[in-house]
Every structure is written in C-alpha cells, then in structure tokens.
C-alpha cells in the first residue's frame, strides 16, 4: 500500500528543489510515465511527490543567445519529435524522441524525466551525448551546467545532487551536418537492444566533428572522444567506421537480458556503427 502523503505543485524550479530537500522519500514527478509505472509495480514508494507540471519555466523550447536551443525539462517527447529546429547534427535528438516508446507515452513522458531517471535503456542519453548537449540543473543553490557526457554516471545514476532537478537541456547552435539515431528493438516501442546515435557537423574548413554514442543494453551511453576524432580524421570512411565500431564494442559493457545477450550486442555494435556512419556520409554528400 502506498506511503504517499503529499503531492506538491511548486511554481518555480527553486521551489521544487526546496521541496525535494525535505527528505529521501520525496521524489520528483514529471510526466509520470516511468515513475507511476514503478509505483504500480511497487518498485518505488515515495512519501511525498513534487510535481513539475505547473512550473512554467520548464515548458517549451526556446532559442538561446548563442544561437543554440534551450529545451525545458517538461518538454514532451511528442514536441521534440515534431521540432523543426532539431535539424542537421541535432536531428539525432529528434529521431531519438520519435522512437521513445509509443505515441501516447510520448504525449506524457518528458525529456527531463528521462534524463533524470537515466534508465540505461532510454533513448535520450546517447542522443544527448552525441549532440554534445548540456544538462542544466536547478537547486536552492542556483543553477549549474553539466555536459551530457559527464552527466550519466551509471545504472540509474547521474550527476544530479540530492534536492536538485533537471531544469533544461541546452543544445549548441545548429550547424550544417547530419544527425541520426538508429535503434534496434524487438518490436516498436520496446527499449533498444542497441542504438547508435551519431551527430556530424560539417565545419567551415571542410573538416567534420563527430559525436557518437551507443545506447541500449549498457549501463550508460558508450562514448569516446578519441573515436570521434578517428571518424572525423577518417572522414567517415568505411575503414574509420570499422575501427570506431571495434573500439566502441570493446568499450561497451553490454548487459545480458531478456532482449538480447551481451554477446549479440557486442556483435551488433560495430555493424550498426558502420551502417550509421555510411548513412551519415551519404547524407552529407547528398547535402553538398
């Protein structure tokens, strides 16, 4: 039987953070898609819930002064899936949003909720790492920013401090390039067996920058700047992709679960990396 005694509706991120500080049994509820499922399965039993539904600041997508995008934590997957400004290298996030669960759940779930929970099987973490996103956190002490690459620490573990909430996701200015998210799942809407997030920026000097990460079936997004550099220097060649795939498969510590074996994931990672890189190369050429 539920222990839940209070449900708060703060109006600002700081107020929400202050409420969270009341104790360990106080949890934040965003869209509810994950938290209520866990409550229904008796996996969590909060005493107080802090709803972010009425925090106006957390809603919506806006341009930042540097030309990037600020995505409020309460932005629904559905909104991101339809967001035209997520173009070029940032399309990785739009594609990932469109592959989260299924349409009704995408009406409920929020990017902040997924990021804060850090479910290893979620679609956003790898896409955010690939897109070089920054996570903005709010607490009574103020705001701080953590690059996505440093935010996801392990299974359901993040850089979030106690009594701190995810307030926004910050994306760098859109640039020419491509972004893609290739997800292998048993059926539509399932968690990924393996997903490859790839974000390629074409630079003015004709060089490219690559951000890529593997998600699904591993505790955190698998990413390595050296691999990005290798792909960039190799100009997304098949040989570079093969090297990158091998390096990432070696770096990954995939899980064995009902979706697939760890061995299969290790087998699939380089193959999916190669395909993603080839697709990105083709799209870049077409855009030329």
């Amino acid at each position, binding site marked *: *039987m539920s*222990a839940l005694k*209070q449900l708060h509706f703060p109006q600002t991120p700081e107020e929400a953070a202050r409420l969270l500080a009341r104790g360990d049994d106080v949890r934040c509820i965003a869209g509810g*898609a994950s938290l209520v*499922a866990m409550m229904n399965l008796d996996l969590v039993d909060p005493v107080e819930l802090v709803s972010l539904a009425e925090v106006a600041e957390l809603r919506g997508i806006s341009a930042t002064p540097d030309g990037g995008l600020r995505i409020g934590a309460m932005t629904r997957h559905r909104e991101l899936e339809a967001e035209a400004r997520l173009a070029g290298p940032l399309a990785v996030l739009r594609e990932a949003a469109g592959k989260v*669960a299924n*349409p*009704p759940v995408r009406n409920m779930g929020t990017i902040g909720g997924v990021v804060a929970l850090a479910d290893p099987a979620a679609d956003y973490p790898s896409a955010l790492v690939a897109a070089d996103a920054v996570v903005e956190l709010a607490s009574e002490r103020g705001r701080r920013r953590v690059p996505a690459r440093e935010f996801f620490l392990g299974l359901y573990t993040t850089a979030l401090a106690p009594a701190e909430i995810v307030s926004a996701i910050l994306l760098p200015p859109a640039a020419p390039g491509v972004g893609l998210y290739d997800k292998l799942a048993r059926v539509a809407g399932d968690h990924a067996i393996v997903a490859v997030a790839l974000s390629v920026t074409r630079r003015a000097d004709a060089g490219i920058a690559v951000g890529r990460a593997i998600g699904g079936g591993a505790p955190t997004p698998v990413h390595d700047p050296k691999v990005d550099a290798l792909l960039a220097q190799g100009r997304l060649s098949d040989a570079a992709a093969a090297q990158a795939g091998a390096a990432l498969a070696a770096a990954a510590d995939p899980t064995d679960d009902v979706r697939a074996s760890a061995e299969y994931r290790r087998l699939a990672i380089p193959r999916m990396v190669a395909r993603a890189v080839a697709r990105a190369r083709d799209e870049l050429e077409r855009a030329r």
Partner: protein
Amino acid sequence: MSARQTLVLRVNDTEHEVRAALHDTLLTVLRDQLQLTGAKRGCNHGVCGACTVLVDGRPVRACLTLAHTCRSAAITTIEGARGIADRLREAFEQAGAVQCGFCSSGMVLTASALLAARPAASVEEIRAGLSGNLCRCTGYRKIVDAVRAVAQGAER
C-alpha cells in the same frame, strides 16, 4: 496509507467531485468511483494501451497518470467521446475491426486524436500512431483499414 483527498475532475464535460488517494491513478478513479469502466486495466504499466483516455485532447495512459495531477485538465473517456470517435465507431463496425473489444476503447480514442491532428493520415502514419495500443485478436489489419476509411472520408 495515504488519506483520500477531495478532487474535482472534469470528465466528459461534467465536473465530478471525487475522494481519491494521492497515489490513485486516473484509471482507478474513473473505474471505481465514476463507474466509467470503458478504460481497461490490461497491464497497469503503460504498455498495452487499453486504459487510454484523452487529457486535453491528447491520448494518455490513465494507468500512469495520478488522478490528482489532472485537477486542471479536461478528460474524455470512450463513454463521452464524440465527433471523430463516432465516425470511427461506424468505420470499426463496417470493417469488422472489433473482436474481443478489450482494446477497442483505447484504439478509438488514440485513433481519434491521431485523426484530429492528421485528418488524412496515411496507412503508415496510422500503423505508427496505433503502435502503442496492443490488440491480440485482429492482427491490426481491419483496425488500420477502419481508421484509414475515416481518413479517406476526410480527404474527399
């Protein structure tokens, strides 16, 4: 155990005052207190879609929605859905898109929201749009055909 608290829910254009525990889901309140049993508990973890209702016109999982978070929302259940839903009912009947019926409420509501957003939705859009509503009886073909028939009506 959390105590029950008063809550005013706007369901099918009528305001209802209910007493609900804070952890009670919208599904529980609709079914047990308002006797609106058209939304079904198929899994209670948001996968099957049988509990789908519209909140402010958008399909959501009633089983994953805490009732108290709906205090300022307009909720539509299958019992109160009209307009596109009525056209869908006619099309489901003609296409033979209903077998056991346990998924039908959720299917009609999800499809009505889909068509509200994309009145002339294609077969592929419909297949994608309904992919969060499981049906174990029909193989989906006749359901997609029914929704497509309404979409084609909108094209004309």
